[in-house]
Structures are given as structure tokens and as C-alpha cells.
């Protein structure tokens, strides 16, 4: 067992209280708890329960309810995070009810952010919250028996003393609620875990398979009307005028208004960097009694659009990005040694350019949001990954006190980064504010795909020097739309492994809105880098996997604190992947490709198996080895791993969005291709046994998938893919006659 030693005071985020109806309530601030470096916003002594956004309730009968109001976008945290609490509370998981946070509270907002960091950052504070509750219950029982608490033990909600007498948690909750929060608690050691590491199905499973209203699109209140919004069809266009005569005459139509002014005023301020798609223009809103009537009438609006800023095309942007790669207007994010000197002395130099398209997020639940703005309060409900920001931003936009905002989370039909940006929250709030009614804003799929905050198009140029059989220099250049890689990415592999190493970035500012997309930047960088290392190995005439392992040896024992990846753990997943995939031992007709990558604090290696079917290379299997530390919920983890791999394969193969005169070339699934059942490879997952703290799984298995496939396609076709999506390059997909067996 280990005494908790986290760097922040538990009292900052835990308070207890007895409940009027009996039982113990332990409130804690999950937002603060999961971001240890964030200071609590106000004086702790003035906090009351309205300031807490997550709760454990232990009833007199011993039933434990964990309220988890954190955003659930399909990554499984609504299940896994309560598991951490329940483990240390020492109750049986089957006796725990997990509920979405209370929906009718007047006084608090749930300030929560999701993302791949939930489990990593929640690991210690959430277990500590459970341990605190357990300790208080145990102390209460010991006091009643008049014994030293250290002589008592707990198991599955029962406290036992040295004489073998027992009390249930429910028997002592009233007493426990009166006790002080203990200053120190003891956390279980890994070997004593009973819940962590066991399979727990999704807590919303029953509701999902029976079609219960869980999602934002399903939310309704009496008197609610529906809104469909007509936005500029092209980035760079602005509304000039419109004719709504026909729309107004259509059945169910209540009103036609314009919005945009308020959001525009807000986003031009320096304090707000929330991307707002097409915010420079007014938008025409049809308000109707039903969704269909609103959508139909929207299509009857005749609008005139004028060009405000240049309408950009993919061809134009490609030239800009290539121009940046050829130029010298870079910001240097990391520089080790002297790459120029190494290139000057090199025996061999390899340089390649890799190109990616824009990608829409395509959450299955199209963007939507509910708002009811009244003189008393602002009621916001729906799927947004940044609820805290949404509440503050809407209050700011409408000139209202943030305390008047009551915001409720709904389960999200996918996020992938799109719902970090709440342009649809602004829209819904501005509409409700204008019409003084509760309103549900619904995007059509076409709205969703054309008013996106897309993954930006990016080009990488990588150049390496080889001298005397060693890689002596590595130069990574990035040219991207609107922004560049950030955070620790420049310190990922091969940083630390190559003496002369430099990362340079530049960007072209476009009027097309861009944002985070599952595994931002690394979702394509991993493809570029891991394709490059295969080609570099070919150039050096060495084994591609051995090249990676040799480079990792140079990182071991590094004193460079910027290097967060572990060369030992990366080497291990590589070796396990070699073994599990039967690397190099497959018979004729199976072509394998390898990739390994570290991101989001997890280490992953993947091997793709490609076979030729009807003269076409087909991805049949991906072996995926993951080291994410302790696996909290293997059942959920495997789902995330498989989903990430298949998503990565699908977007590398098919994902494509081009712009022509500011308009995306696809607006719906008749022309935009997402991976479907027949194209899905078998995914064989292996998770490394570990006793170190867990790390994220929502993203890290996606980035290496594209490279593993590209390297396998090279083996199958002899052709090297340097741009995505692969299927766009039909000539490269052709298989030489010698590869077709039988």
C-alpha cells in the first residue's frame, strides 16, 4: 500500500455532508481533480456543494451512487472513471450505480473537459476520493466500537474489526458525515485491485440498445421549436441579401431571422480563440414547429452571397504549403546539434515530402444544441466537449452573468475534436435570445460537413543524413493550414536518438476553419515519419525494425527532460509486435508493414497484413500492441484500441476533402467515404502487462495505422505512398504481376 503523496491538497476538491434524507454525500471537483496544476477558483472555505461537480452518494442502505457528469463521447470515461473511485471505496462494482450528474440543478455548472487525458490525470485524485470516503466510514465504525481504526478492515462495503464484528457502510454513513476529512489516506497497491483491471461494460449499455433518449438530438422540452440555419456555402462568402417569401409560406414555419452579429462581436475580441466556422457572415435561420419543416424551408430560402475574402481551392493551398516547405520562413521548435554540417558530410541523404488532405470529423450525431434564453436564466443542453467554456462564452456573448447559465451535458454521438468548438452553441443561444423561445438547433449532414472545423491539410518534408552506417541528421519541416504542431510533439521519437535534429514549422492562414481532429498533428505526422524510416532503412540497406531499435538505444538514459517517451517501453512494444504478428515469418501472399509510435503518453506498435484479392491489395489484419500502463477496464480499452486502428486505416485509405472555390467537394456520405464493414481488417490486440499509472487510449492507436498500411502496401505493390488517401492513387494501387499468387 502507498500513502498518497500528490502535490495538491485534497481539501481543495473534497467536501462531505450528511444528506437530509439520510446517507453521506461526498462532493469533489472533478475538473480540479483531473487537472492537478489548476488552482481551485475560489477560497475553499466558502465552497458549498454547488461548487462541486461530481458526487459519491452512500445511502443508509449502503447503496453507492457515483454521479459522473463528465462528457462521454464514446471513449468510455463514464465507466472507467467511476471504477477508479469504487476501487478505493472498496465496494463491489455490481453494487455501484453510475448516473449522469443531476440534470435539474439550478446552481451549478459542470465544468468538465474530456479528452485522452481523463484517466491519466484522474488516476490519483479519483482513487484518493474513494479512499477518503472509505477511511471516513472506517473511522466512524472504529469510533462506534471504541477501537483503533488501524485494527479494522473493509471489503465490498463491509467494515470488520479484530473481533470479527461487522458494520455495513450504510450503518455508519450518518456518523461518517460528521467527521473531518482525513489529511492522509492510504491507496491500494496494484496487486490488491479488485475492480481496476476487470471488464466493466459501458454503464449506458441498456439505454443504448433500447433506444432511450441519451443524446443531445433527443433532448426535448415543452414549447420547443426547431431551427435550421443557412450558412454561406463557401468559406470566404458573406450574406448579401435573401428572399424568404417562399419559406415563410411553408407549413410549420414560425419565423425567419438572421444571426451572426453577436457571435462576431465576441470572437473578434482577443480573449476568445474559439474557432467559429463561417463567423464573418450573417446566417439565415428558419424557425419551425418540427425539424423537417425547418430543414425544408431552409432549402427554400433564396440567398445572395458575396465574396468577402478570396475563395480558396486545394490546388492553390497546395502551392502555398509547398512554397513554405521550399522557403525559409520557419519557426524552429527544436534544434539539436548542427544539421547542416551533418548533411554536408553525409554519405547518403534521403528527402521525402508527405501530403495530407483536410478531413471533416463526421460525428454520427450531427452538430446540434438546445438553448432557452429567458430574462431569468440561460438554459443550455447538448453535446459539447467544452461545457465550461460554452457557458462562459454564451454569457459573454449575451452580456449576461455566467451564474445565470445552467448547462447540462448529454451523451455525445462522437466527438473526435469537433465538439471542442462550440460555434453551434453560440448559434443556438443567439437564436433563442432573438425569438425568446426554447429552441433546438439541428445541423443537416450537409451543414455538418460544410461548416466544419476540419483537420487542416498538412505537408511534411523529412530529410535525413547517413554517415558510416549511422543516421547523423534528421530534419522535419511542417507546413500546415492555420497552425502548427504544439506541445511535446517535437520531442517525440526520433528526438534524442539523432545528434543533429531539427523541427521547423510554418503555416498558411486560410479562411477555412480548422481545429483538433483525433490525435491532432500526430494523426498524419506518424504516417510521414514511420513511412520515412522504412524508406531510410531501404536506403541504408538495413532491417527497418532493427533501425528503429538501434535508434532507441541512443535515447536510453537520456538526461533530456523534454523527452517524455520511454525508449524501453517503445522498444518493448516493437518486440512484442514482431513476435505476435509473425513478422517476417508469413508465407507468400501476405505482405506486412510496420509502424511504432508514441503519443498521448502511450506507446504503440502495429503490423498491417495486406493480401491481394482480385488483383487489389486489401488490408486483412492489423496486430496492435499497446503499452498504456495499467489497463483500468480491458473491455472498454480493447474497444478503443480496435476503433482507433480501424479509424486510422479508414481515413488513410479513403478520407479526403478537397476545396474548390471555398466549397468542400463532399457534403454527405454519397460522396464522402468512411470505412465500412467489408473493408474492416481483423484487429489483434495485445496490451502490455504493467504496474505503472495508466495513460490515454482514445487516440494513440490511430496515428501508426496509416504508416503500417503504407509500409505493407509498399511490400505488396512495390510502390511508396507519400500522400493520403491511398485509394486516390489508383496507379500506385496496381499490383505487379509477380505478386499475384495463383
Amino acid at each position, binding site marked *: 500500500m502507498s500513502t498518497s503523496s500528490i502535490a495538491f491538497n485534497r481539501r481543495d476538491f473534497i467536501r462531505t455532508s450528511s444528506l437530509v434524507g439520510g446517507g453521506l454525500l461526498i462532493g469533489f471537483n472533478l475538473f480540479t481533480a483531473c487537472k492537478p496544476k489548476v488552482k481551485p477558483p475560489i477560497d475553499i472555505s466558502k465552497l458549498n456543494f454547488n461548487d462541486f461537480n461530481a458526487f459519491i452518494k452512500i445511502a443508509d442502505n449502503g447503496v453507492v451512487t457515483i454521479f459522473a457528469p463528465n462528457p462521454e463521447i464514446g471513449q468510455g470515461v463514464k465507466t472507467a472513471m467511476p471504477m477508479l473511485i469504487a476501487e478505493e471505496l472498496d465496494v463491489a462494482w455490481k453494487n455501484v450505480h453510475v448516473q449522469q450528474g443531476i440534470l435539474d440543478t439550478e446552481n451549478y455548472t459542470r465544468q468538465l473537459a474530456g479528452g485522452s487525458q481523463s484517466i491519466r490525470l484522474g488516476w490519483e485524485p479519483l482513487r484518493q476520493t474513494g479512499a477518503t470516503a472509505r477511511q471516513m466510514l472506517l473511522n466512524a465504525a472504529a469510533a462506534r466500537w471504541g477501537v483503533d481504526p488501524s485494527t479494522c478492515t473493509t471489503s465490498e462495503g463491509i467494515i470488520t474489526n479484530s473481533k470479527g464484528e461487522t458494520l455495513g457502510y450504510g450503518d455508519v454513513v450518518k456518523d461518517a458525515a460528521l467527521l473531518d476529512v482525513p489529511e492522509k489516506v492510504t491507496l491500494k497497491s496494484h496487486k490488491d485491485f479488485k475492480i481496476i483491471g476487470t471488464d466493466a461494460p459501458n454503464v449506458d449499455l441498456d439505454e443504448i440498445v433500447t433506444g432511450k433518449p441519451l443524446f443531445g438530438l433527443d433532448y426535448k422540452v415543452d414549447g420547443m421549436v426547431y431551427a435550421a440555419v443557412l450558412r454561406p456555402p463557401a468559406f470566404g462568402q458573406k450574406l448579401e441579401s435573401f428572399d424568404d417569401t417562399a419559406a415563410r409560406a411553408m407549413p410549420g414555419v414560425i419565423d425567419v431571422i438572421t444571426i451572426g452579429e453577436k457571435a462576431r462581436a465576441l470572437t473578434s475580441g482577443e480573449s476568445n480563440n474559439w474557432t467559429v466556422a463561417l463567423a464573418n457572415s450573417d446566417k439565415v435561420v428558419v424557425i419551425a414547429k418540427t425539424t*423537417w419543416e425547418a430543414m425544408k424551408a431552409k432549402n427554400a430560402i433564396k440567398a445572395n452571397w458575396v465574396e468577402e475574402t478570396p475563395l480558396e481551392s486545394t490546388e492553390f493551398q497546395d502551392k502555398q504549403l509547398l512554397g513554405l516547405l521550399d522557403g525559409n520562413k520557419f519557426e524552429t521548435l527544436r534544434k539539436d546539434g548542427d544539421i547542416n554540417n551533418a548533411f554536408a558530410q553525409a554519405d547518403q541523404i534521403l528527402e521525402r515530402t508527405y501530403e495530407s488532405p483536410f478531413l471533416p470529423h463526421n460525428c454520427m450525431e450531427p452538430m446540434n444544441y438546445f438553448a432557452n434564453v429567458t430574462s431569468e436564466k440561460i438554459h443550455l443542453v447538448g453535446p459539447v466537449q467544452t461545457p465550461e467554456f460554452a457557458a462562459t462564452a454564451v454569457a459573454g456573448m449575451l452580456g449576461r452573468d455566467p451564474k445565470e447559465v445552467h448547462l447540462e451535458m448529454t451523451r455525445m454521438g462522437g466527438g473526435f475534436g469537433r465538439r471542442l468548438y462550440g460555434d453551434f452553441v453560440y448559434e443556438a443561444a443567439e437564436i433563442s435570445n432573438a425569438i425568446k423561445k426554447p429552441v433546438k438547433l439541428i445541423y443537416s449532414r450537409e451543414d455538418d460537413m460544410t461548416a466544419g472545423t476540419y483537420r487542416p491539410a498538412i505537408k511534411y518534408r523529412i530529410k535525413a543524413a547517413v554517415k558510416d552506417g549511422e543516421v547523423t541528421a534528421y530534419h522535419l519541416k511542417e507546413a500546415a493550414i492555420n497552425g502548427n504542431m504544439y506541445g511535446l510533439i517535437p520531442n517525440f521519437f526520433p528526438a534524442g536518438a539523432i545528434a543533429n535534429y531539427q523541427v521547423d514549422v510554418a503555416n498558411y492562414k486560410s479562411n477555412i476553419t480548422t481545429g483538433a481532429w483525433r490525435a491532432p498533428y500526430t494523426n498524419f505526422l506518424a504516417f510521414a515519419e514511420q513511412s520515412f524510416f522504412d524508406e531510410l532503412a531501404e536506403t541504408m540497406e538495413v532491417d527497418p525494425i532493427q533501425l528503429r531499435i538501434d535508434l532507441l538505444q541512443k535515447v536510453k538514459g537520456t538526461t533530456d527532460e523534454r523527452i517524455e517517451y520511454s525508449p524501453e517501453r517503445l522498444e518493448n512494444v516493437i518486440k512484442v509486435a514482431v513476435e505476435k504478428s509473425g513478422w517476417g515469418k508469413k508465407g507468400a501472399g501476405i505482405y506486412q508493414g510496420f509502424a511504432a509510435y508514441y503519443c498521448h503518453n502511450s506507446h504503440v506498435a502495429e503490423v498491417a497484413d495486406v493480401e491481394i484479392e482480385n488483383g487489389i491489395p486489401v488490408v486483412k489484419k492489423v496486430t496492435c500492441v499497446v503499452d498504456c500502463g495499467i489497463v483500468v477496464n480491458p473491455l472498454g480499452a480493447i474497444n478503443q484500441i480496435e476503433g482507433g486502428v480501424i479509424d486510422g486505416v479508414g481515413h488513410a485509405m479513403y478520407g479526403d476533402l478537397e476545396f474548390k472555390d471555398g466549397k468542400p467537394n463532399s457534403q454527405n456520405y454519397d460522396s464522402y467515404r468512411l470505412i465500412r464493414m467489408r473493408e474492416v481488417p481483423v484487429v489483434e490486440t495485445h496490451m502490455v502487462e504493467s504496474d505503472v499509472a495508466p495513460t490515454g487510449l482514445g487516440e494513440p492507436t490511430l496515428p501508426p495505422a496509416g504508416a503500417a498500411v503504407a509500409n505493407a502496401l509498399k511490400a505488396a505493390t512495390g510502390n511508396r505512398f507519400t500522400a493520403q488517401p491511398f485509394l486516390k492513387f489508383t496507379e500506385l494501387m496496381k499490383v505487379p504481376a509477380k505478386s499475384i499468387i495463383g
Partner: protein
Amino acid sequence: MPTYNIIVNGISQSIEVASDTPLLWVLRDHLNLVGTKFGCGIAQCGACTVHIGGNAVRSCSLPISSLDGKEITTIEGLSENGDHPVQLAWKELDVPQCGYCQAGQIMTATAFLNNNPNPDETEIKSAMHGNICRCAAYTRIHKAVALAASKIR
């Protein structure tokens, strides 16, 4: 506006709507059956799949005018207690990630298994190919259809 009579999950419903209103929005907005999901509106993703006369159909692209007198089953009416073999298989294998597309997946799988209770792997793949799962929980969807088949047999 005209009135249409349909039978949804065994209950007769009389609905006054425009003739071109898709079944999807009749279910969601008029009958408050929101388990059937809106995904694309053009019958390409399968999120809106329901049964008419036992066959899987895309409710987003079926105007109400074509359905007068028809018997419709939605996810809410698939079983009384969420215990249809397909639903049980989905739960046993913990299929969903975000869960949004799953009602449509389940309705597609159910209709398919009614017609082909003993499918092979290729038949399952073809049957489910029309339903997009953006979270890519495809591996489990595939296994769940096979498991459901074994439960039905």
C-alpha cells in the same frame, strides 16, 4: 394537412403531417420515439434503420405518404424488456462506443437474421456494410451478429 394512419410498435397512430415528411421525423418529432437516429438524411449511413413488415428500411428517406396503414417497428418496440437476442448479444459483447449508430445497427442485424438465421462471415459483412459506425466498433458489431445468430438458433 393530410392525415396518415400507421401502426408503430403495435400501436395505431394517426398523424397529420405534410405528405413528404420522412418517417424518421414523424417518429422523432411527432411520436417522440427518438431511439431512431438522424445521420445523413439520404439513406447512406443506416442510423435511421427501422422495420416495415419485418424488412430493414431507411426511415430518413421514406415519405409518410408511402406508408399509410403500414406496420413499423422501431428500436423501442424490438422487445419489451431489451432482451431480444440481438440486443442481448450487443450487451454481452459491450459493442457500443459512443452508441449513436447502434439502434440502426441492431435493427439492420435483426432483419437480416430473420431472413438468414445461419449466416457465414461474408454474409454478415455484406448485410452490415450499409451501416456506418464512426467509432469503428465494427469488430464487435460483426461478432455480435454472429453471437445473436447462435442465440436465435
